[in-house]
Structure formats: structure tokens, C-alpha cells
């Protein structure tokens, strides 16, 4: 897998089918419906529970706005990921181009996915910092790999935005 800036796009080339599939799973990973821990993390409270008025107003007025914002970011990513459907040959590496104007949406969606997965599997700090973990042997291991891979992508996008 290679990253580079190509005109007004961030290009990820030599994407093998496994990593391409993980990218395809970003929108699905952002969906926190039915996963209580993930919902609580993504829509965390704005103030201590004792501030009942603030928390109640937040639920009514702010949370719907946040939902719209997160959905919009996910939809942008989903549209960019359509490029991966152009890889017609099985097991062939493919290329993804992220328009720089979509970089913030990608950062947001990748963060949603990372937080949702981490909350779903309740990863410990130790697990999240263990970058030399043994090969993937379970759905939980795959989740941890996703969190790290999406974080790697975030770093790449952030570095590019700084240039």
C-alpha cells in the first residue's frame, strides 16, 4: 500500500483486497444503532449529569445536528469508496483517490468508526497501544486491527493537511 498526494487528491494505491474490504466497512462500522456502548461514546453528554437542564436541551437541539453531521461525513466517504467497486479482477490490488475537499469528512468518519469499534469491543488501553499483536484470530482481533488501520489512515490524512 502506498500513499501520495496526486494533484487535488490523496491517493492510496496498491490496496490489497483485504485492506480494500476494511475500507469498505467504514460506513457500516460507523453505524451505532443497537450498540449501546458505542452510542454512549459517540453521543456523550455535554456536562455532568447534575446539569439536568443543559443535558436535556442538548438531547433535543444538539444531538440531531450531530447525527446529521456524522451521517453527512459517512455518506461522503461511502461515495468515495464507490471507486473500489471498479476493481473487477478478483484479488487484484486497487487504488483509491480521496479528494482533498473530502479530507475532513474522512477524518470524521474514520474517527466515528474507530470509537464505535473500540466501544463495542471494550478494548483496554493496553490493547489499543499494542501494535505488535499476534495475527488476527477472532472478530475482536479484527476489530483491533481496524482501529489501528483507520488510525494509520487518519495520520496520513493529517500529515497531508499540514503540508
Amino acid at each position: 500500500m502506498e500513499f501520495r498526494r496526486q494533484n487535488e487528491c490523496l491517493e492510496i494505491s496498491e490496496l490489497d483486497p483485504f485492506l480494500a474490504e476494511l475500507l469498505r466497512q467504514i460506513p457500516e462500522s460507523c453505524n451505532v444503532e443497537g450498540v449501546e456502548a458505542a452510542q454512549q461514546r459517540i453521543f456523550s453528554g455535554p456536562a455532568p449529569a447534575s446539569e439536568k437542564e443543559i443535558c436535556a436541551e442538548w438531547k433535543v437541539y444538539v444531538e440531531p445536528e450531530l447525527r446529521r453531521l456524522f451521517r453527512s461525513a459517512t455518506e461522503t466517504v461511502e461515495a468515495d469508496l464507490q471507486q473500489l467497486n471498479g476493481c473487477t479482477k478478483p484479488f487484484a490490488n486497487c487504488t483509491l483517490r480521496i479528494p482533498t475537499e473530502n479530507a475532513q469528512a474522512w477524518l470524521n468518519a474514520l474517527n466515528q468508526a474507530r470509537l464505535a469499534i473500540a466501544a463495542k469491543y471494550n478494548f483496554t488501553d493496553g490493547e489499543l497501544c499494542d501494535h505488535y499483536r499476534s495475527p488476527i484470530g477472532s472478530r475482536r482481533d479484527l476489530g483491533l486491527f481496524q482501529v489501528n488501520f483507520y488510525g494509520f489512515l487518519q495520520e496520513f490524512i493529517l500529515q497531508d493537511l499540514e503540508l
Partner: protein
Amino acid sequence: MQSSFGSSVENPVIEQETRAAEEIDLPWQVIVHNDPVNLMSYVTMVFQKVFGLPKEKAEKHMLEVHQLGRSILWSGMRERAELYVQQLHGYLLLATLERTN
């Protein structure tokens, strides 16, 4: 009592101390809490974007969050504090507004 100018004040007018609504509503803080998932570089970028901080100062707050578990990013009126917290939640940071003790 007589002043040095030779005149006395018979009926002193005591003005009531008044404060603007902004001052009365001052004691609110925007606090960002530690989160093991958010990347340090991402948190720094968010502080720069939301509060317009220079990178060095944004990194200082990020490290405070990372090492001490929380950092006070801003304090002032409630309405503005709510707006900052909303922006921080938009970036998925763990942020709260709290009254200053």
C-alpha cells in the same frame, strides 16, 4: 469631615454596583477529557481549528489531556461554552462544560 477644599458632602450618593450579564454568567469552563482512541495529532488539529490556537499551545493542551486526564480549554459565558462543546463533539472529542468552583 471636611475635605481639603473646604466643602463637605452632605448627602453622598452611593451608586449601586452593576455588572453586565456577561460578567454574571462567567463561571463556565470548557473541559476536554482523555480518550484512549483519539489520536494525539487529531486532538491537536481540533484544538487549532476550534479555538484558533497556535500549534505549540494546542499541543500543550493535548499533552495535558493525555497526561493529566483533562484540560481546561476555555472559560467564560455559558452560551459560548456550549457552542465550543458542540464543536468539539462534532469532532468526537470527549468535552464538557462545567461551572467554575
